[in-house]
Structure formats: structure tokens, C-alpha cells
């Protein structure tokens, strides 16, 4: 399979909120990187994990499947999953796949943090 071309950094602006900054491509190959980032983002007190898609370059259908799996993990840990920084194109993909019904979409980080509060 193709190698992952993505990097993910984790920030914790608040003890109950973590942000995963995604740079690159989300495909099946990035599963271990995404799950590792989620593991670092998810602490005992974390109630909301925010995905920053500002640096997203490409996502295929396997990638959107990974987000469903991530959503399951977050729900199991009683955490909300949110996203911001999506271009119109990727917003449409969230709409098509109806992930926007489960993942809160915001236009910027301030909006996502306000919703997480």
C-alpha cells in the first residue's frame, strides 16, 4: 500500500479540549498516525477533540472511513468530535457522507473552541 504523507500535531488549549493539526493527506495509509494522534489528544479530562483540517491536501473514501472509526472511539470515551478549516469541497464531502450530522463543523478554531466550552 502507499505510504502515509501526513503529519499530525496535538495541542491542548484547555485541559478538556485537544486540537489535532492535520497536514497532508488522509488515506487508509494514515490510520496509525491518526490513531496515535488521537491517543495523545485523548486524556482523562478530555471532553472534546477538534480536528484542524486547514492543512488538508487530499482525502479519499478510505480516509473518510477512518474518521468514522475515530468518531466511534471518541463516542466511546464520551468525547465530542469537532472540525474546522474545511474548504467548501471538503464540507461538501462531510455533507455527502452525512458525517456533518455527527461531527460539529466550524469555520475556525475560535468557533470550535467556543462550541466546546
Amino acid at each position: 500500500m502507499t505510504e502515509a504523507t501526513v503529519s499530525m500535531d496535538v495541542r491542548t488549549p484547555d485541559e478538556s479540549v485537544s486540537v489535532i493539526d492535520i497536514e497532508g493527506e488522509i488515506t487508509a495509509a494514515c490510520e496509525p498516525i491518526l490513531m496515535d494522534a488521537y491517543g495523545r489528544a485523548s486524556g482523562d479530562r478530555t471532553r472534546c477533540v477538534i480536528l484542524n483540517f486547514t492543512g488538508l491536501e487530499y482525502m479519499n473514501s478510505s480516509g473518510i472511513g477512518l474518521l468514522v472509526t475515530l468518531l466511534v472511539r471518541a463516542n466511546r470515551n464520551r468525547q465530542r468530535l469537532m472540525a474546522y478549516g474545511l474548504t467548501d469541497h471538503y464540507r461538501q464531502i462531510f455533507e455527502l457522507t452525512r458525517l456533518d450530522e455527527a461531527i460539529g463543523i466550524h469555520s475556525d478554531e475560535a468557533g470550535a473552541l467556543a462550541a466546546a466550552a
Partner: protein
Amino acid sequence: MSSERTHRDGESWAKPVERLEVAGVQPGSSGINVAGRRPTSPVQGFGRMWQKTYRVRLLGADVTPQQVIAVWKRDFPSFWPKNNRFFAPLAGIQPGEVAVLDLGMPGGMKLSTGVLVMYADDESFTLMTPQGHMFAGWITFSAYEDGGVTVAQAHVLMRASDPIYEMGMTFGGHKQEDRHWEHTLQSLAQAFGVDGHVVSEMVCVDRSRQWGNAGNVWHNSGIRSGIHMATAPARFAAKPFRRG
């Protein structure tokens, strides 16, 4: 590189659709249970969430992943088991196209439903199910190179759509689905002159059931197909009296 990837990505995804429309599919299907239905992801399903992967190594076949996907798209219905029919879109497997399915069920029953082509590129394509389908989710068909051998793969991410389907999947439905995709991959391999052995993996991603979606049973295509079949004689008898 970024803009090139984004451009390819943009052409590969279907546009969002509120409800499916059926137009331009091969003739012969009952064509019920598709038009007007909303596409569904695993988020809208009811049952446990499963991730199933079926793979076949095309050992000895001099074929690229792109060639495998081109043939798979072109001849998709021919690889299916008997008693299951896939009425492909006339435009082919392209993003946004809708196909109609008639699936053979035990007891001579036929379940009519459909799929939306959610994503398609040179190396993969994904079908998304509508309301009433046995499961809510999608199936990605892909091919890739692994150690000098091209591998064809079907990857299912799904929840049974409603409590009735969940019971059906538990009592034989999963095995029937396994047989379906194993047959499909073996037929695909044979198309490239390979007697392939299909390897499957099944992982329960989420054991919980989404009871809030139990009402999906209203759209159950199995029940609606059964009613449609049972009332066929009445529709036939009433035909001469219809206007137009």
C-alpha cells in the same frame, strides 16, 4: 503537487445529494426502494459497526492496480454471484451515479435496493447505501501493489440499518455477505487468469447498537420488496383499468 491532488480529489467525489434519483440504469430491474431515499453512512445505521476486508493476491497476473480497477468498474455486475443482479448506471461507475440492485434472498424472495457511487478514481471506487438497504455504510473496492503483486480488495464499513436486518445479519447474514464478496473477488481474479484465494478479516469496531435509529425499519427494503412481490397479482389485474 497540492493543487494537482486537490483537483483529482475534486473530480473523484460525488456531489452531495439529499435524496437519490434513478435515471439511466440498465433495464430489467424492479427499480423500487431507491428513488427518494437518502444515502446513509454508518452514523445513520442501527446495528453493531463492522469493518470487513476481503483481499485476493493476483499472483502471476501481469496487471497494474489501475488496470484491475478499470476492469472491475467496467464489468462489475459480471463478478457477482448468481441470483444477485447489479443494474449498472448507463454512464458507468462514476461519482454521483446510482445503480439498482436485485438481491436473491432465501425462499425465492428478491430484495430490491440500490447504491450511490460516492467516490471513484483510478485506484478505487466506493458505493454508498441508501435508506432501506441491509446496511448503512459504504464499500470501497481498491487495488494496490504489494511486494510486486497486485492485490484487489473489497472493504466494507457498515452497521445493519435496522433491528430486523441486525437480527438477519447475526443469523446468517454476515456469512452470506462473506460468500458474496469472496465469490466476487474470485471471479475478478479469474478474469485475470488467476485462481485466487480470498483472505478475509472481520473486526467489530463498535459493539453498541444505536437504538435511536431503530425507526429505520420503516424503510426496510426487504419488507417493502416482499409487499411489492405479494401485491404483484393485484397490480397485474388492475392494469387494464388504469387510465392512460
